[in-house]
């Protein structure tokens, strides 16, 4: 009888320990996730641009600070597994607006959002942003003309399509303008959150002039 009790207590202790371990891992993963989501280069570059804007266009500077606040709030206080497509689109639009103030007139940025206002579709957060970041990283040139077209739509209820095409200016390894989650991470997250429920194609077209990333998420 006593031996059974001792054994049970040992098992219980073991279970407690592994529970603690799991909790620790979860917190660590969360922290790591957070670090990945806030690209320090994006943050610093945006602050620099806002600093200049204050000199030339105070209203635009205020607007930029609001956009940045919205982005930070979304990233920092939003640890849900799924968010509404509208929240996610709003986040991407804020990001695009902030990136636009850094660019020369050489670059054309077009966003085309066609998701019905009544849509209740949920998506996993901060997935599309990696594709958008990537487009800004490779689609922009200081010398040549460049473009980025971002289209997010819901062709059928519950099905979200994100198509991003951009002019292709591959950058050297020494350039550190981008970073963020990276496309490898996107792949991992898709496998985890949308197993067998997504199609993702990346390809180069127009004789190497255009890069396209086409992601569809199914119900």
């Amino acid at each position, binding site marked *: 009888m006593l031996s059974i009790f001792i054994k049970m207590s040992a098992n219980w202790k073991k279970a407690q320990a592994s529970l603690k371990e799991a909790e620790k891992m979860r917190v660590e993963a969360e922290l790591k996730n957070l670090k990945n989501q806030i690209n320090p280069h994006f943050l610093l570059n945006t*602050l*620099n*641009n806002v*600093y*200049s804007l204050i000199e030339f266009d105070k209203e635009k500077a205020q607007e930029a600070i609001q956009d940045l606040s919205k982005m930070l709030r979304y990233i920092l206080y939003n640890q849900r597994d799924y968010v509404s497509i509208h929240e996610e689109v709003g986040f991407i639009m804020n990001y695009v607006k902030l990136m636009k103030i850094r660019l020369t007139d050489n670059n054309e940025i077009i966003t085309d959002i066609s998701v019905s206002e009544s849509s209740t579709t949920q998506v996993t957060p901060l997935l599309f942003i990696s594709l958008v970041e990537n487009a800004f990283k490779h689609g*922009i040139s*200081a010398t040549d003309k460049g473009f980025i077209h971002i289209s997010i739509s819901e062709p059928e209820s519950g099905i979200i399509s994100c198509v991003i095409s951009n002019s292709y200016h591959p950058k050297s390894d020494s350039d*550190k303008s981008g970073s963020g989650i990276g496309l490898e991470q996107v792949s991992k997250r898709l496998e985890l959150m949308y197993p067998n429920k997504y199609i993702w194609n990346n390809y180069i077209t127009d004789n190497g002039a255009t890069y396209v990333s086409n992601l569809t998420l199914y119900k």
Partner: protein
Amino acid sequence: MTLRCIIIDDEPLALNLLEKYVTQTPFLDFKGKFSNAAQALEFISSTNVDLVFVDIQMPELNGIDFSKMVKGKTKIIFTTAFSQYAVESYRVDAIDYLLKPFSYSDFLQAANKALNWYELSSQPNITSEEVSDNTKAADDSIFIKTGRKIIQLKYSSIIYIESMRDYVKIYITDSPHPIVCLARMKLIEHKLPEGYFIRVHRSYIVNKDKINFIENNCIIIGRMRIPVSDSYKNNLDLLLRKKQL
């Protein structure tokens, strides 16, 4: 004195602010702005430019690589949002390094450094008035500007001084590393009292007290051999005539 100046940054807003800073600085003569370094290089090849403000992190040609391609007297001040480039910027001998976002006063401080550099390097021979002024002051030390500090050095702590183009390296007793100072040899020679020091070469001034021995037109101090050149041999001969047994 005005410095002809260009600015380079791939981000238009940063470029605009920099332009404003340059144009409101009386001693800077704004010559152009460029959103990429390659265009700026082309401009420099046909126009004299004294000072370039250049962003480090740019696509295609970055600021550090750009500065390595700039030849001649053109001086560089880097601007960047990322402090990890600081070490490399010192390696390429930049005048200064501005961390974005920087205020006009930060900017002016860096620009002043460049102005000082040019004024020092174009300074004519020192006036006799200054020299006599210097000898009157019966002290035993000199003030040396190195980096952001001005330090006081006792004459007795200076072993010898070596010139490196626009800089001098001052070897001292208390440190294995020389103190580097932006100054021409002629200037520092005049500032040092004759009783203590002797110029033995275009590139060397030696503290007389530190000489161990002289051999084959070389002065030996510890492990260091300092050459005595023909044009300065007279100085040494004079000393030896007075002091040699």
